[in-house]
């Protein structure tokens, strides 16, 4: 752990970010994931994201449910408060933290079991309320921690680790998120940090619930031939919508692009993401119907769409909706909260 107010070294260091922290300061305790687990790559991506953005870790809370994926908040951002809640209930706990202290940066991590099954109601309702949080699902199409059962994102006809085929249909989480009213929906692949990190950065800049489904292969239970969540399969069937770049607020905007092939999306805090057209498709993430159509078409072809799938900056987030003051609720004391003696006297009179 390092001190946020660390004394500045004499010679300018190149390995520190704008608040003087090194990447090491954003690490967690050593991971206990199986070597090669996609979840570890996501943790690395999260570390890079916060480090590069120079976010003070004390402002961040990282929350999760239960699962291998939900263990990972211990493996990044050690100097942040963490909360490993119960299975499927991370979104409600995150919502409580968000409204209690609106200054916290709420970062939620979940798994496909945690979010697409036991916690599907909480996922949908956190989205519906527009809790100001980043909501990451580390999606491996299996219950890693309980040893490889099918999850609700496992595709139909796909065999599990022991060769038994799944006869249920899969839930497409980004599609569900869009339908539930999510204002920021993305998908990434744990094996493609270049795409994951800008998406995470954009999600952090977004006000409201930013939902990112990250394909994260489980090397132990779901990386075999025939799986549609294996490294090989995801790599081969990754249908990128665009190349993403994140440009921070206030940083000088210098984009190397030829007009027409790049879309700019401005986020709430003024930062910008650029979406660079690939092939001939010019994907418009603000078009909800098209987003759903794109997901459905890819699903039918058993392809995996990645990128910023849907974005709508006009939805009010939860704290605005609740008309909360700028000052976090936890900072009010009895002077601000307890009605006066006179008020009680008047009330008592009215009950006669």
């Amino acid at each position, binding site marked *: 752990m390092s001190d946020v107010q660390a004394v500045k070294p004499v010679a300018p260091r190149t390995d520190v970010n704008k608040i003087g922290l090194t990447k090491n300061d954003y690490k967690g305790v050593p991971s206990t994931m199986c070597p090669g687990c996609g979840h570890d790559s996501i943790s690395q991506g999260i570390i890079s994201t916060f480090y590069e953005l120079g976010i003070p870790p004390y402002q961040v809370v990282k929350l999760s449910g239960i699962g291998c994926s939900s263990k990972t908040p211990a493996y990044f951002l050690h100097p942040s408060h963490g909360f490993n809640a119960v299975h499927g209930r991370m979104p409600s706990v995150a919502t409580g933290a968000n409204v209690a202290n609106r200054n916290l940066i709420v970062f939620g991590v979940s798994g496909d079991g945690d979010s697409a099954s036991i916690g599907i109601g909480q996922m949908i309702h956190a989205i519906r309320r527009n809790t100001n949080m980043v909501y990451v699902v580390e999606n491996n199409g299996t219950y890693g921690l309980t040893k490889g059962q099918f999850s609700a994102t496992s595709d139909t006809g796909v065999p599990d680790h022991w060769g038994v085929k799944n006869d249920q249909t899969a839930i497409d989480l980004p599609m569900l998120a869009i339908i539930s009213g999510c204002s920021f929906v993305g998908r990434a692949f744990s094996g493609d940090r270049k795409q994951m990190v800008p998406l995470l950065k954009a999600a952090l800049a977004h006000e409201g619930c930013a939902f990112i489904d990250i394909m994260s292969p489980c090397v132990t239970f779901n990386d075999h031939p025939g799986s549609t969540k294996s490294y090989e399969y995801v790599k081969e069937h990754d249908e990128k919508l665009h190349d993403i770049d994140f440009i921070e607020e206030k940083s000088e905007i210098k984009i190397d692009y030829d007009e027409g092939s790049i879309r700019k999306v401005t986020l709430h805090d003024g930062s910008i993401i650029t979406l660079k057209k690939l092939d001939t498709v010019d994907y418009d993430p603000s078009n909800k119907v098209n987003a759903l159509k794109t997901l459905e078409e890819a699903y039918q072809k058993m392809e995996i769409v990645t990128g910023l799938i849907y974005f709508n900056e006009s939805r009010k987030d939860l704290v605005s909706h*609740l008309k909360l003051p700028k000052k976090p609720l936890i900072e009010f004391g009895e002077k601000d909260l307890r009605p006066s003696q006179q008020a009680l006297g008047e009330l008592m009179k009215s009950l006669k």
Partner: protein
Amino acid sequence: MAQKIVNDFSVRIATANGTGSQSANSTFFKALFRMGVCASAKNLFPSNIKGLPTWFQIRASRHGYSALKKHSEINILVNKDTYKKDHEDAAPHSIVIYDSAIMPEQDFNRRDLTYYPIPLTKIATESFDNARIRVLLKNIVYLGVVVELFKLDQEITEGVIRDTFSHKPKVVESNLKALHIGIDYVKNNVPKRDSYYYEKENTGRNNKKVVMEGNAATGLGFVYGGVTVMGWYPITPSSSLAESVIKYCEQYRVDSQGQNRFAIIQGEDEMASLGIVVGAGWAGARAMTCTSGPGISLMSEIAGLAYYAEIPVVIANVQRVGPSTGLPTRTQQSDIGMVANLSHGDTKHIMLFPANPKECFEFANESFDIAEQLQTPVFLMSDLDLGMNQWVCDEFDYPDKPYNRGKVVTEHDLKEMETFRRYFAGDEDQGIPSRTLPGTNHPLASYFTRGSGHDEDARYTEDAHVYWRNMKRLLKKFESSTQWLPKPVVEGQKGARIGFVAVGTSHDAVVESRDQLSQSGIKTKYLRLRSYPFHSDLHEFIDSCDQVIVVDQNRDAQLKELIQLSVANSEPKLLSLAYSDGLPLNAELLTQKTKELLNRE
């Protein structure tokens, strides 16, 4: 005519749900209150919005009793669907007032009863054109009958109507008109043939009292106690508690810019509601939720998380009849056993048992201090009878104690500290560790909260010794909590060796029953528990008795079982008086069952 019976009888009004009878009934009750009479009201209502039968009992007592009375001396039958049964059930020699416009006179043929046929529907129809208003005002017409027949003070009754509808002069006008129609009808057509009268009393007994529902009082207590986050999910009988928090927050907590010093979120279910509250409590807010049995069942996993991870939260449980959906609009104290250990594993929870709205207010206000000092869930155990009925109770005192936020280590404190250990408690700490709040700007501040095994530094561990040490500490903390919890109240008769122990709304019936027993030569004393874990006063009380009757409003003697588990060697002395049919307890029943228990028929 027999001797006058003044201010010492009950009236039971049988109406249909959703017909506006509530307003007439409340007016009736409030008028008695303002007359200085000792009055109590019980609303026995169905789980339905419109149409099913509702009974409202208003009791006046010269002796200050306010429990439900088994029999009513006066029955007012307004509900066509239930009148036959209501008539059949009328206590021997009681008075029956019925709507003769819709109930045939030949059905009222009991020789022991005194009948007053009043064509309520007809006179309401003749006087009001609008069909909806007619139905509503029919109830006020019956109130006019009561005013004239039993001398409920007319001026005071009119005053209550004026105050109730002070913002709607037209409604006042039509209500007063209906009242007068009832009064005039009796004056002109009905000679008095009974001996029941209301009279103003000038003992001043109600001067320092108010009329309030327990749920409203609890909600107010939470607002005074500093709640800033509430997660909730609608369920009878706790919805009106949530609505009271909303109402008082909107009244007292909106700042001059129109911004809310509160966040109220209707969850998608009770798991989410408690999850929200846990997240908020963890982040440092005073957070609460309220629910009833089915919601408590759903909350169980997260309640265990809050216990083990040591997060302050307050949960109000307005108990209703179980198991399962049970009788949603009837009262019971049947969650005591479940809540005491809610969730799997060795889990123990603090419970508070208010018995009247004043205690609802006080306990709700104090519940946050208790939860934050002990960093654990606190359950405020109310019930439908207390929560949803109107009660006459003492005025509330202004709570002027500063909030006690418990052991919160701040950035400032951390600067003076070498280490911060989230789950470490020294010998002098009584098992209570200290916490930092998320967002504290200091490198020592952060820790990882989890419901899995953890050591003093909040690190994951499966170490056997560490696990056991932690569990022992949690127990120590739990047991030390009594010093912050409301003490029991003891009332004694000198020399009594028989004791009653009860919680919450059993109180009124116990008080009355003790007088009845005393008249039969059975001396008793009484300890009313107000919190769990139980205070050592309970041990002493049991020691001082030969026999202790534990009153339970449930089948399985849940309170008695808990006492038995908590107080060593108490079992041989404990007698269980466990009964619940969904109605508030009445003293006759308690007295009879007590005599049976003591073999003193």
